[in-house]
């Protein structure tokens, strides 16, 4: 450190107040706890597992949609395919697929925190 010992330096240094922490550090550490700078290997494995299950869930949902027998749905998405699933079966497949995707996506987010 340089030394600048003159009256101006002294005045400047004396003019400076000590700023009390006042929760500054706690607030910062809460932010840090919520945003780790590294993803640990265990979290990485959980993330890849979540991605794989999300893809699987989305595939199930896509399969359900592509085999839709509800006329409106067919009209909107896949007009020419018809397999004879009942609306209840179709909705169950869709719901299972999307719930699985949402659940695993949420789990991935929780694990990454």
């Amino acid at each position: 450190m340089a030394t600048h010992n003159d009256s101006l330096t002294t005045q400047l240094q004396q003019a400076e107040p000590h700023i009390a922490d006042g929760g500054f550090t706690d607030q910062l550490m809460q932010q840090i706890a919520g945003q780790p700078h590294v993803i640990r290997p265990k979290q990485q494995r959980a993330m890849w597992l979540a991605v794989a299950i999300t893809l699987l869930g989305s595939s199930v949902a896509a399969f359900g949609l592509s085999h839709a027998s509800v006329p409106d749905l067919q009209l909107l998405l896949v007009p020419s395919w018809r397999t004879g699933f009942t609306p209840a079966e179709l909705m169950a497949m869709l719901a299972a697929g999307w719930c699985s995707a949402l659940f695993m996506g949420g789990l991935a987010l929780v694990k990454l925190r």
Partner: protein
Amino acid sequence: METAALIKRVLQFGDQHAFAQLVQQHQSALRYSLRQWVGWDTSLADDLAQEVFLKAYRKLHQFQAQAKFSTWLYRIAYTTWLNYIDKQRVQEAPLDELTEARCDKSIQQAGAAIDIERALRQLTVPQRVAIHLCLQRGFSHGDAADIMNLPLGTVKTHVNRGREQLTHLMRDYQEAANGNA
């Protein structure tokens, strides 16, 4: 615990308590510096200080052990502040608000502090920062040049011109105060 030991604990064990101690050691000085740079907007300065410490935490592995932690931290702070003013136009707080930060000082000291801050506002931004780093924080001209990413000669010029102007302004304020008394 010393700064180097705390940094080692953060890097080796991910010890967040050690980082909290580092923050506690530097928060007052850094928050005051940022308040001065942003024009005494305390909320803005504290937001930027949080950002600076967060960046420091994330980049701590890049810190070179032979360097001074305070220089490294101030380089982050200066860059963060420059990035901010690139995006926004910073308005300086009215002088009345400065007294808020002076409650722990005597009236005479508080008056002197306000005079200094009023005088500092008359300087150009690089002069103000160079004066603050070298005179108030005690950084060498080389460290200040490193923090501000400016040539050494430019920093010395800012310090010398700023010092001359500040001395002149402070003398004027003192004469005016003596005249009023």
